[in-house]
């Protein structure tokens, strides 16, 4: 007695960002006067691995809008998170009010009293910003009021942050997307990672003895609330920085 062996099927798939296959092409025709016209075309894969653009059809304005929505992964509407300060296609910025949070240090020497230290300490109000190219910035703000366009920015007093405010992410696991729903994940990624060394060597904080002395004092509980006088004024406002999203030499 014999019979064909049965096949065992095993499929692994994923939700969200997955492998995408070339499905359509859009050809754009432009007139000298500035008007334009677009057509949508199917794609036929060739046995040799190449592909051919098939005859197409006119692309309607509705199809353009639908494609734009799909590509930007934007919902048409919804509730706006109360901490979001700014959002456009290139960046999202949000506010984290002053609060007590745990902070983790792992420095090579003994400057903080031990190689590894972690305490719950006070933090100033912060503004985080993530750009479409996944550059991640943080700045400090004084007070506990929600920042506005004219709010002055101060240097975030943390290790592993460049002069421009860009965060050196190292091997930190970052959330996949910077959307309003994921802000807390970004906050956690910042505060739950190790701070290892200052990236700004002058004027990270106005504190006698410099940044190590300051953070050692914070970790030793010498300041019950965050001493805002140590913050270094950047001489620009939130509105200005979001307008230009100016970066330093590490931004590229």
């Amino acid at each position, binding site marked *: *007695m014999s*019979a*064909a*062996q*049965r*096949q*065992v*099927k*095993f*499929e*692994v*798939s*994923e*939700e*969200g*960002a*997955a*492998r*995408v*296959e*070339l499905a359509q*092409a859009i050809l754009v025709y432009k007139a000298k006067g500035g008007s334009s016209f677009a057509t949508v075309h199917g*794609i*036929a*894969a*060739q046995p040799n*691995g*190449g*592909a*051919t*653009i*098939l*005859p197409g059809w006119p692309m309607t304005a509705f199809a353009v809008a639908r494609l734009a929505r799909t590509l930007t992964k934007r919902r048409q509407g919804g509730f706006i998170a109360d901490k979001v300060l700014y959002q456009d296609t290139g960046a999202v910025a949000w506010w984290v009010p002053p609060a007590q949070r745990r902070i983790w240090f792992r420095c090579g020497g003994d400057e903080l009293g031990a190689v590894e230290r972690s305490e719950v300490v006070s933090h100033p109000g912060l503004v985080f910003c993530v750009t479409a190219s996944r550059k991640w910035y943080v700045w400090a703000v004084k007070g506990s009021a929600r920042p506005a366009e004219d709010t002055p920015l101060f240097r975030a007093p943390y290790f592993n942050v460049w002069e421009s405010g860009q965060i050196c992410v190292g091997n930190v*696991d970052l*959330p*996949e997307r910077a959307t309003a729903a994921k802000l*807390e*994940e970004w906050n*956690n*990624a910042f505060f*739950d990672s190790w701070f290892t060394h200052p990236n700004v060597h002058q004027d990270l904080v106005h504190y006698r003895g410099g940044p190590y002395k300051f953070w050692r004092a914070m970790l030793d509980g010498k300041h019950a609330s965050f001493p805002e006088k140590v913050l270094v004024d950047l001489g620009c406002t939130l509105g200005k920085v979001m307008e230009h999203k100016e970066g330093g030499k590490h931004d590229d």
Partner: protein
Amino acid sequence: MFQLPTLDSSIPCELVPQASRRRGALFARTLLRAGAFDASLMPARIGSDHIKTCQEVLGRWMARELSGLRILSPQFSMRLRDADERDGRGMRPACVIEWGGQSFGVRCVGPALEHLEKRRAKLGKTVLEALEHVAWRTLPIYTPNIVMECASDTYWYGELDEESALEENCGDDAEQREEMRKSMVTRAMFDAVFPSWAIGGGTKPLGRRTLLQLAAETKERRIAEVIEAVLKLMAADLPNNDWAFRDGRFVGFSGVLAWNTNDELTLRVLDDYEQMIGESGDYFESCGEDTVDANDPAVFREWFAYMRRWCDAVRALDDLIWKLTEGDWPGMKRGRR
């Protein structure tokens, strides 16, 4: 001559987003750390799509564990997604694992079981019960007992015969009752197709020691082989599937064991039953479902260990069904199944 425009060869026909690559790489690392694989399962050339590579390796692993199946066609799926819950340090990706079986269609089990029962009382019943027991823990199959439960659900208001349904619909009108009885599936039909031991509870099945003794004493090689297959099946150590926590009714059966070639009742009942469930929309098809942390090797180690036992049981089940339904048992019409 008109020619359609071609895309430059540097334009890729598919893209794997960074997030997907990362998720795939982490998943591959988890599987490797779970320690289920060896070099022989790895593809010769590993592509850039790690999810695809994982699928290939998992498929080979499962094919190795389930080699030689002749009746059953198990299928598995793993779906990676972002978890809904936080663990305090960001989101952990989850893996939804589902497994079940494609249907092998209809095979007749009656001639073999009746022959066994004729050779030794309760032997046919013991084989059928062992088959049902393991099938419910691996890949459920429609057997006479289950078909009668389906009839009870579909026609008899959950009772063991049609009397309550007749009462409900016709009251004391004897004529109307008989009219309805003629048009529906009745308990008498079951009694006509199946022997009572195939659809009733009743006596205890034979024990392992008796089966060993029977296998040693029988002069019929096929009976000895069936008993050997049943003993393997009885050795399967699997926990009971907790079907109660799933929503709806299970319809993902891996096949139908009809009684014989004259058994039109089984297919009539199952047609009506599946039609009823399909219309309700309240059903599920996978035999097993689990959501686990996609980055935790310990969880997968445990799952692979469980699936090895599951695969052993499926191979034994497949072997028994093959032995019962293949070839010409006495009473089976030659050339037909």
